[in-house]
């Protein structure tokens, strides 16, 4: 009975205190105390909020970073794929252009051409190329090898069953009879110069030639038709009192970048 009374009293006191506090709040008596308590609480609340916000964001950031990392990796892989594809397409385009040039040459001249690809160089001899066709495709020693619209780059010097060795015109031992477009006669002999350029000797003094004139094959050799372009005259080396003129010519193509070539096979035409 006593404890029940005590409990009721306590409740009354608590309610009274609450009412008193509310009253004091409204008459602004406990404002300094309130301010002090709230300012302390604000700081704690702020820190807590900031901590949990950071935690939340860092979790979101972590998730996003993972996502971005993954995305970045995917994009990088895609870029690499695209680069590879781009190179592939670029190669296809180059190959296509070269094939078109060769096809145009074939249509214009009615020569029998065998398309070949360069597969390497001879380990033991400079200024050579190994091509991927040989006797099986009808190739033979002495046949001219061309690129683009009939630019001769060399002659076959050895033929195996499925490959052949080509000696480039720039080799010292390469010799081709040449002419100029304005003359029907053989006008000289082109010979390689240390793998760098081509020198033409035995040009008659009365033949009018100038720098930048084209030099073409004369057709003197049975397997090499007339009109294949060797290059442009770079320099006239001889003096006026020399017996013959000598000129240096620059090849029209870079011999280090040859990939697709064609071999003119005139043997079949002659045999027919």
């Amino acid at each position: 009975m006593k404890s029940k009374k005590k409990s009721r009293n306590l409740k009354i006191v608590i309610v009274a205190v609450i009412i008193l506090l509310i009253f004091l709040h409204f008459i602004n008596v406990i404002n300094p105390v309130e301010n002090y308590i709230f300012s302390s609480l604000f700081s704690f609340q702020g820190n807590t909020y900031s901590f949990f916000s950071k935690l939340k964001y860092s979790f979101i950031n972590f998730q996003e970073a993972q996502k971005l990392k993954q995305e970045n990796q995917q994009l990088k892989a895609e870029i690499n794929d695209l680069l590879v594809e781009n190179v592939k397409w670029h190669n296809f385009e180059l190959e296509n252009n070269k094939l078109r040039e060769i096809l145009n040459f074939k249509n214009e001249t009615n020569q029998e051409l065998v398309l070949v690809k360069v597969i390497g160089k001879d380990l033991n001899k400079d200024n050579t190329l190994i091509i991927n066709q040989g006797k099986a495709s009808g190739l033979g020693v002495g046949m001219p090898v061309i690129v683009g619209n009939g630019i001769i780059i060399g002659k076959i010097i050895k033929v195996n069953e499925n490959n052949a060795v080509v000696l480039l015109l720039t080799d010292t031992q390469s010799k081709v009879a040449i002419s100029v477009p304005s003359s029907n006669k053989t006008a000289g002999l082109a010979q390689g110069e240390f793998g760098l350029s081509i020198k033409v000797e035995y040009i008659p003094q009365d033949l009018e030639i100038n720098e930048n004139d084209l030099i073409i094959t004369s057709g003197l050799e049975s397997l090499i038709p007339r009109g294949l372009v060797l290059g442009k005259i770079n320099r006239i080396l001889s003096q006026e009192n020399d017996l013959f003129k000598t000129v240096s010519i620059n090849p029209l193509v870079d011999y280090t970048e040859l990939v697709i070539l064609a071999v003119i096979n005139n043997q079949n035409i002659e045999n027919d």
Partner: protein
Amino acid sequence: MIKYIAYFLISFFLVFIQQSLFSGFSLLADLNILLITIVYITLVFGFNLGFIFALFIGFGIGLYTFLPFGVLLLIFLAIVFLIDLVNKYILTSFSFFTNFILIIGATISYYILIIVFSNLFFYLKILEVNLNLDQRFLDGFFNQLFLNTLLMIFLYLISKITFKRLNLAFLIQNE
């Protein structure tokens, strides 16, 4: 049988690398990995394996040269005999000096034999063209001498470390 097929495939892979990959690079074109392989194998694994590799490599590279088929095979076999002879009677230890001298000797022998055979077949009218014994040829020779020696030294160092780690010192003859 399977190991011989493996040797054959390795040899053709090396020929392929030499012929189509290295030949495209101006500096690496002078590095003769075929010769180095043959010298190294003869030196480390003995005459028999060197002979087999010389046979396969010579056969493979013979298809891609201006020299008549079989000439390079003979040259590689001759080099294996030479290396084995020198390694048996003169430079018997597997040392830096042995490797150094043997690769230089092998490269010089290779060049001499190439020049002899090329000239021989050219004057016998079997070859259409001969080697150009000019400045470029000389440059190529010195480049090859340098690059071959460099790679051989590298292989020697790798072998030393590997053999010691794997306790394969018995592979290094007479050390």
